[in-house]
């Protein structure tokens, strides 16, 4: 049996800053995204959406729409295909006139042009019976419930020792509540699909984070075998979780296409429609309690989270998960409680769980450090666990302290005056802050890779992976080249289709881990077969297919990435305006496959974290159940002018246990902790502790 060290891939192409292999197509705009695939005589779908938050459509008058020239069909629950019952209340649309949330699809118009479809959809008259809706999340609701587990399969609650007792006897305690708002993923490419039925089979050109995930969700709804649904998605304009599992737009497109068999139906969502049908990050309310002794050693940590789900389908964000791993304390407790509301279904948004869950607790650590009279870095170091606090497993690698130390050195932390509100630059109050980052190492089962060597010296690597901007095209080519011990120029990678071997999707920062491992396994098998042929490729070529090898270490080690983020924040003393001139992130995430695209992943995460800290908040109107600021003029994401100096680096971290590449996944790590570092710096600048995101100017006026 080979040891972990021996099975690790020797890096040659891995680690180099190879430029994106799909870069030329992207800078010229010629890489085809979902609805940009050329198709013959497409029809166009415009949806009909519920104008009430709860109730029933008692009558839908489609006559005027049907009479419009150029209209091919009008889809409602009256003529929609019957779907198999799969227990997914989000996807099983148009099976009745019931309305579970405002904006839910009630039908659509299929027409010769997008303009006609839109105009005709507007002519449809819907009569409703309204029921009283309930869309407000509050921590004091009496109907909060405990989900069976939280996303994807974590325990809802955990407890060790006697947290309440330890808090009662602690020398220093903190009891504070933090909140994060509803946020929308808003990838730049709106969700988009071309659906076409031919001979009872369905082809979807879809903007998705997982071609096989979409296939797996759609096929049973239409009672098809998996292979009767073909999903194609070579380029995806971002997803950030919202294109992970398919949303009702894919089902509506497939239903509409059923009414015009043989014709491809195009259905790109508008930005405004995205605010009601493709998911969002739940608002969270995080009650944190910490207890410590005089030396600043934590004796107790509790985190009780309240958040929302939808009545039509449960999604339970795992917000308390990072607290189970971050710091040592003998007495600890975490819990999640949900309010089920008449809202759209929340979903994954970049680092679900870890992103909101590293806000409250990391601000609390800053508050507690001050209460203990310790520097926030020293306080974290003092509470560094030797093993994973809850499972007791050793860490496969954990370099949080090294990240904090290296970051402190690079940022110039050493001479920081801890007193808040004492530095001024003109009318601006200046402060600095720090917070930790973490994200688990996930690997999803089930992926397969096929590699075929041909006598012309080429290696065709095929796997149904996707590239949502993460650099999959490039990184998997580098992994394949090293596993095959050839140059990247000899590798032809194919991804982005269910015609390729099965693969998990891009989610949980697991892509490279889950797709790279079977590629390495297939390459090793292929090389063994080539050896059998004396090292030459026979005329018919040589092929090998391997799946995801079992990793025995996953049950022996706790596997996580870590990082430290530093922020300099200026807050205007008169207006409360907040500006972030400087951010630094130092990470330890195993081996970085591509230094160029990997850096971009971490920069991107921190940029979205800055956006979360300063700007993002979906405002739900409780009277109507819709998001008021449902466009990019009012739902602010950071612009170029909001990002100042932004630096990223990583430690060389060697981890032979995670997978043969030694990679941990970096798509989400960067967004965790950013908002806390900025909030902590804003406190240092002003002396005002804001515990609710975003950091809008009015919160800094006394």
């Amino acid at each position, binding site marked *: 049996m080979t040891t972990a060290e021996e099975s690790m891939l020797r890096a040659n192409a891995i680690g180099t800053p190879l430029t994106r292999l799909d870069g*030329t*197509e992207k800078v010229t705009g010629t*890489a085809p995204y979902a609805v940009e695939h050329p198709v013959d005589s497409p029809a166009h779908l415009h949806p009909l959406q519920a104008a009430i938050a709860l109730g029933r459509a008692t009558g839908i008058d489609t006559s005027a729409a049907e009479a419009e020239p150029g209209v091919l069909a009008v889809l409602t629950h009256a003529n929609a295909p019957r779907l198999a019952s799969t227990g997914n209340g989000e996807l099983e649309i148009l099976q009745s006139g019931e309305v579970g949330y405002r904006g839910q699809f009630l039908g659509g118009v299929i027409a010769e042009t997008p303009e006609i479809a839109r105009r005709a959809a507007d002519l449809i008259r819907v009569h409703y019976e309204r029921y009283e809706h309930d869309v407000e999340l509050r921590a004091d609701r009496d109907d909060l419930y405990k989900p069976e587990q939280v996303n994807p399969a974590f325990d809802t609650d955990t407890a060790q020792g006697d947290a309440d007792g330890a808090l009662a006897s602690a020398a220093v305690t903190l009891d504070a509540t933090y909140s994060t708002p509803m946020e929308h993923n808003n990838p730049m490419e709106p969700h988009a699909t071309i659906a076409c039925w031919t001979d009872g089979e369905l082809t979807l050109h879809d903007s998705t984070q997982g071609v096989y995930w979409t296939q797996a969700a759609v096929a049973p709804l239409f009672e098809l075998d998996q292979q009767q649904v073909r999903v194609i998605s070579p380029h995806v304009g971002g997803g950030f979780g919202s294109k992970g599992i398919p949303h009702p737009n894919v089902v509506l497109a497939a239903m509409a296409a059923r009414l015009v068999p043989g014709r491809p139906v195009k259905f790109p969502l508008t930005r405004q429609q995205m605010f009601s049908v493709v998911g969002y990050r739940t608002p969270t309310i995080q009650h944190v309690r910490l207890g410590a002794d005089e030396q600043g050693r934590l004796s107790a940590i509790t985190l009780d989270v309240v958040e929302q789900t939808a009545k039509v389908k449960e999604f339970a964000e795992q917000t308390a998960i990072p607290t189970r791993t971050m710091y040592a304390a003998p007495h600890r407790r975490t819990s999640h409680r949900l309010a089920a509301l008449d809202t759209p279904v929340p979903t994954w948004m970049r680092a679900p769980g870890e992103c909101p869950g590293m806000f409250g607790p990391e601000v609390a650590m800053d508050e507690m450090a001050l209460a203990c009279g310790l520097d926030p870095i020293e306080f974290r170091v003092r509470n560094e666990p030797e093993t994973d606090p809850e499972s007791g497993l050793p860490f496969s690698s954990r370099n949080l302290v090294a990240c904090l130390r290296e970051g402190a050195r690079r940022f110039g932390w050493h001479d920081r005056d801890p007193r808040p509100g004492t530095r001024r630059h003109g009318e601006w109050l200046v402060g600095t802050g720090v917070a930790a980052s973490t994200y688990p190492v996930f690997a999803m089962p089930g992926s397969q890779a096929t590699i075929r060597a041909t006598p012309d010296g080429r290696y065709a690597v095929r796997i149904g992976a996707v590239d949502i901007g993460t650099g999959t095209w490039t990184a998997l080519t580098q992994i394949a080249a090293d596993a095959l011990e050839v140059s990247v120029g000899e590798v032809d990678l194919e991804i982005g289709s269910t015609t390729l071997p099965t693969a998990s999707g891009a989610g949980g920062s697991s892509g490279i881990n889950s797709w790279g491992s079977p590629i390495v396994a297939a390459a090793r098998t292929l090389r063994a077969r080539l050896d059998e042929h004396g090292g030459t490729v026979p005329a018919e070529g040589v092929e090998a297919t391997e799946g995801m090898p079992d990793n025995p270490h996953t049950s022996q080690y706790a596997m996580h990435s870590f990082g430290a983020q530093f922020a300099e924040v200026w807050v205007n003393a008169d207006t409360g305006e907040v500006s972030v001139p400087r951010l630094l992130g130092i990470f330890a995430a195993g081996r970085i496959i591509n230094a160029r695209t990997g850096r971009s992943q971490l920069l991107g995460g921190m940029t979205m974290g800055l956006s979360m800290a300063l700007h993002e908040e979906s405002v739900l109107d409780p009277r109507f159940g819709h998001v008021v600021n449902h466009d*990019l003029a009012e739902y602010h994401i950071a*612009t170029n002018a909001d*990002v100042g100096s932004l630096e990223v680096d990583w430690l060389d971290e060697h981890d032979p246990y995670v997978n043969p590449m030694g990679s941990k996944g970096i798509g989400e790590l960067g967004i965790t902790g950013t908002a806390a570092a900025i909030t902590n710096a804003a406190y240092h600048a002003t002396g005002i502790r804001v515990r609710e995101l975003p950091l809008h100017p009015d919160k800094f006026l006394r």
Partner: protein
Amino acid sequence: MDTRIELRVDGEQRSLTVDTRTTLLDALRERLGVTTPKKGCDHGQCGSCTVLLDGRRATTCLALAVAHAGSEITTAAGLADGEELHPVARAFLEHDGLQCGYCTPGQICSAVGMLDEAEAGWPSSVTEHGEGGAALDESELDDEEIRERMSGNLCRCGAYANIVTAIREAANGSGR
């Protein structure tokens, strides 16, 4: 109501029929199959649909096709000189000023238009007012100016830091 119009797109004369309600963006994407400008918001807020319209950067989602009959449009694809990438596009590639790539053609057109504006001395809202008003001295196109001038193009992947580097390098490379 349908109208026949002519457009010059990336150096090619194109003739098409549009509904009077059709935006220039939809005309390009749906009628001409020119999908380089992207659709992201219908609102002029994301900048993904930016092209050079008669030489100036403009968001095509806020332009009616019929109102621009006869105009000259350059997309990111048309900036390339045959196989040779435009220097700004090359800098985006080199400095990884992109991730998912969806906002990228708009960013690049915007950057090219922006460099022209800066060369003409047009001030931005961060340009200091000197005697007799504000004008940009070419040497003053620093990172703060680039960030402000590129703020009409959103990037959700968060490539801004690399976009600024790419544009700075491209500007320097062209002798600025």
